[in-house]
């Protein structure tokens, strides 16, 4: 009794959502992997990316500028946050890091709420990507298709940074053992700052890319953050490939379950996470290293 076109279009929805989740989660996971800090303000970063893009868009009318402005603003915010606050927490217990990033996230959300009110804002997709594309057997919103492509490119860029540059090598070495990297004469703390900026930028970029799909509210990052956690737990903390795999899995689970009953989307997501925790406690692609 499954409506096939509907099912396929949900698969595409899942792909688009999954790709976004993958991008946001990779930001979260490389920050955690390198710095050892779980950034609970990551959802707020995603939200701010959307708003910064929205502001740029309302002044310039250019979506591309909005994307650039959104990403850069969040990167700068991330760097500032790391410099001013987070770096004082590297040697404090995990709980304190969680508390302070949680508090910062609330501050960010409330500042945005103060400026833009709780009303939802709209960022239209660029003219080129508006409308609907025929895939032969079904019609699908062009922009959502484009999201998959854009995010794939962004993930590719992140991959290149992580696996093909000197910085990436240091970051991956730092994930393994930051003390060792430090003693090799590399300024780990400068790398930390850059990583925090890149990780935040990934969330901000996803935020503005996602803005035309959903309406923009100050709370838009909260649900995303929870989904990101599930992605990271499924994929394995600190693992970039794990974040991508986990993102796609989570996206599909949410979309396909929503086709039957949206109320059960989170239940299924949670069931998947539990299954992973029972069978592979370190995540699908995680390693035993860091806790």
């Amino acid at each position, binding site marked *: 009794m499954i409506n096939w076109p509907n099912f396929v279009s949900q698969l595409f929805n899942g792909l688009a959502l999954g790709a976004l989740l993958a991008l946001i989660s990779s930001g979260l996971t490389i920050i955690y992997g390198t710095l050892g800090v*779980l950034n609970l303000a990551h959802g707020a970063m995603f939200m701010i990316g959307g708003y910064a893009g929205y502001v740029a868009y309302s002044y310039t009318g250019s979506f591309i500028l909005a994307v650039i402005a959104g990403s850069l603003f969040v990167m700068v915010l991330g760097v500032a946050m790391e410099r001013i606050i987070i770096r004082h927490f590297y040697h404090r217990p995990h709980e*304190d890091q*969680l*508390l302070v990033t949680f508090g910062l996230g609330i501050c960010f959300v409330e500042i945005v709420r*103060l400026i833009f009110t709780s009303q939802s804002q709209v960022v239209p997709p660029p003219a080129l990507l508006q409308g609907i594309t025929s895939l032969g057997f079904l019609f699908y919103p062009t922009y959502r298709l484009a999201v998959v492509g854009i995010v794939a490119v962004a993930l590719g860029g992140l991959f290149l940074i992580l696996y093909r540059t000197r910085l990436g090598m240091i970051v991956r070495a730092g994930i393994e053992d930051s003390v060792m990297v430090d003693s090799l004469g590399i300024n780990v703390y400068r790398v930390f700052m850059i990583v925090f900026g890149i990780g935040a930028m990934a969330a901000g970029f996803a935020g503005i890319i996602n803005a035309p799909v959903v309406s923009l509210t100050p709370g838009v990052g909260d649900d995303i953050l929870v989904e990101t*956690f599930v992605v990271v*737990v499924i994929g394995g903390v600190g693992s970039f490939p794990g974040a991508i795999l986990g993102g796609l899995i989570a996206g599909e689970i949410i979309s396909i379950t929503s086709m039957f009953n949206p109320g*059960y989307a989170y239940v299924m997501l949670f069931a998947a996470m539990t299954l992973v*925790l029972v069978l592979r406690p370190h995540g699908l692609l995680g390693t035993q290293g860091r806790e």
Partner: protein
Amino acid sequence: MLKQRPYLIEFLTAAGLVLAPFVLPWLGFAPNTVNRILVWGLFGLGFDILFGFTGLLSFGQSAFYGTGGFVAAYLLTRAGFPYVALALVIGMIAAAATGYLIGLIALRRTGIYFAMITVAIAEVFFFVEFNPLSDFTGGENGLPGVPTPSFNLGFTTLHFTTGWSLYQFLALCYFIGVVIALRIVRSPVGAVFSAIRDNPLRATAVGHNIHGYKLTAFVIAAAYAGFAGGLLGVLQAFMPPDAFTFDTSGQLVMQTAIGGRGTLFGPLVGAAVWLSLQDFLQAALGLGAAWKLVLGVVFVLLVCFLRRGIIGGLADLYGLLTGQRGVREPDESEPEVVAVASTPHAAIAAAAPTPVRPRPAGSPSGPILQAKGLTKRYGGLLANSDIDFTVNHGELRGIIGPNGAGKSTFFKMLTCEVHPTSGTILFEGRDITGMNVTDVCQLGLTKSYQVNQLFAGLTVRENLVIAALSGLRGKFRLDLFRSIDSIPGLSERVQQTLELVNLTSRPDTPVSELAYGEKRRLEIGLALATSPSLLLLDEPLAGMSPRERVETVKLLKSISQGRTMIIIDHDMDALFELAERVTVLQEGRVLVEGTPEEIKNNSTVQEAYLGGVHGVLAA
């Protein structure tokens, strides 16, 4: 801080609760605000046991708050159940049961994993309440019409309605909650909780089943949350669906951190600050929605600069003002000087009269530990290869070997911290290969670590109590309401251990204030306090000054009276003086075994140390 005079805190709480309705109105508190503070405070009591005492930061307490609340509210409204108090208890039980099941999943991991999983779980509960279960929970409308409690006492009926009338009921609930929480915190289980917070690895190694205790803390927190959730419905005459939101969990976490974690009353203080600031900022300053931003900033600043929250800050301030610090410090450094100066005498004095740990009648002889063909492979690296090793009852064995000889790996296999690739280990005739550290410690085999593994936030005595408890209570026991002082044999054993490791002068000093040598002795004391029948010491002399070494060797001699011990160390003079037999390991194998004299004169050993790979001069 929680252990001054018996019942002092209980008495002060009761007095405060009785006086509140007379004092708080003068400070501008509306009765409804006070009632909400009490509900948050009660919710927070359980959370503080979980977070402040056990060190598990959960962002998902809303799941249990909502569960308890909706079960109670459903019973009282839709199901027509007439007994309010009983419904609250049923809600609490439901929440605790849910907590048990969720805990089984969430506690599979610790640290940030735990935080992330609890967030996800709470979000699931929120969606389930709204959607699949909306027939029972009223979905986004919640459950209106929750009645207030009344008790028929025969001659009269007590009816608690709203405002200060309901306050009496809530205050009673809070008081009972505090009394129970204090019992739990002061029980042996409470001691193990703080051990888990400070050093889960060592808590496991001294023989506590920490998974069981973590689950216990989680269930306790869920039970408190469930009861408080029920009270929320009673208080508002309506069970709101936002009890299940992430904001609820977040607010609880923030209030606890603001008030002060690990204090039990922190959440209450935090809630008072939160709710009164909210009222003040919204009403008096007309800030509208910006109040939450102000609170967010306050919270971030507190986390940055006042880690222990308001109560912790006040305690520090009180300490400063009364000059407690100033008086205490010389007080503490002086005994140290005395202790160092008198150490040799003290050690001898302690050694001579201390009755040797009673050995079973007709002291067993023969092997206590037998390892056969023990091999450990890490990928391509062979850390230990085919080691045969036997130690007899009452023996003092030394193990030496150049760096990288596999000594520590060998010890880790004996205590079951790592499992051998092949080979078997028999301890007192029982095959312990593949068992875990906790069980092995319970059987009477434990070790002191090469790098100190202490409970850094606790005092010397508390450290030893935790180790001694595992021997006296087994690896898991739910004596939640038992006073720690009432355990037979505990204080004797702690005292005995203090004497053995020569720390009698500083039982109440926090570990963080100990000198290195003292920490090292406490490290040995932790292992001793579990009263092992076989004690392994991994480099007990590591990092000590020559003088400390001399003293520690004396100490080890006195400890070894009537005990079976295996010592790893690089200090050969010390080992040759202490040990009856010495095993030399090299490159993962047993090179030779014999009496100190034999080892000293053995040409292969001389080769290994003098002409061998490392070319290190012995001694």
